[in-house]
């Protein structure tokens, strides 16, 4: 595979992760679940979520008042072959448990979490999709005042 093809795949996978953050932050749970393959797995907070329905349900179970903003950076895509890729990325996650119900802007105390992610992507008829996602939280901020 030449660099043009690899660059195209890298861009597509990065775009999926950017959508993942946006749909997550906007609580578009079904749109988020559809970024995974039908049997995709998300290892989240010590629990294995398998399949789009379980992923969507776990997202819907989050408190409606919580405001999240997932800032994505350091996306490194390693293309395995024409149909598979492995991606590492960093996320800085801003959070307020009651944020959705508060006037904006709300008080800021830096990111609540800084995490690293390792994701496996596969090419499908719908485009590139996440087959497996795993995040590890490295830093956690103290509760604000």
């Amino acid at each position, binding site marked *: 595979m030449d660099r043009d093809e690899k660059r195209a795949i890298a861009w*597509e996978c990065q775009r999926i992760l*950017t959508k993942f953050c946006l749909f997550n932050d906007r609580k578009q749970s079904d749109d988020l679940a559809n970024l995974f393959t039908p049997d995709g797995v998300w290892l989240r907070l010590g629990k294995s979520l398998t399949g789009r329905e379980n992923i969507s349900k776990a997202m819907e179970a989050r408190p409606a008042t919580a405001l999240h*903003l*997932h800032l994505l950076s350091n996306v490194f895509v390693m293309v395995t072959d024409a149909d598979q890729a492995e991606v590492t990325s960093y996320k800085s996650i*801003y959070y307020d448990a009651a944020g959705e119900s508060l006037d*904006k802007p*709300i*008080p*800021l105390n830096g990111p609540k979490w800084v995490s690293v992610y390792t994701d496996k992507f596969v090419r499908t008829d719908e485009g590139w999709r996440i087959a497996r996602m795993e995040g590890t939280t490295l830093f956690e901020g103290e509760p604000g005042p």
Partner: protein
Amino acid sequence: MDRNEERAIEWECQQILTRFCLYSDTRQYDKLVDLFTPDGVWHRLGEALAGHEMLRTAMEARPLEAMSRHVITNVLVTVIDADHAESISYKSIYRNEEGELLEKPVPLNGPKWVSVYADNFLRTDEGWRITRKEGTTLFEREPVP
């Protein structure tokens, strides 16, 4: 339009937003204003800045001693057609009111603001340009005592 063409547009629009941050942070206001179409509108702090003259006047009113860095992430460009696109992006804005006058590095307490931006783009003879920009500040750091 195929994905190769869309990807090229996504890249061009992302570059425009990156230049917007650079020109804002380095006070290159002629260049910043030229990123907008002649009738482009920026909805900024509750005011609609319409056209290059209003945009430049608002920029030139920024205090000279204040230092800012707009860190852009999560740029998701969606191509509407061959000449139109829209994007969502996140910005973490670092700021020190007297930063330009002080020795570097200046003290840091995390970003002052974290914001979400929506932009619309139009293809022109000069390249892709912003027709409409609107930002919403979600988080704001309290002044440090």
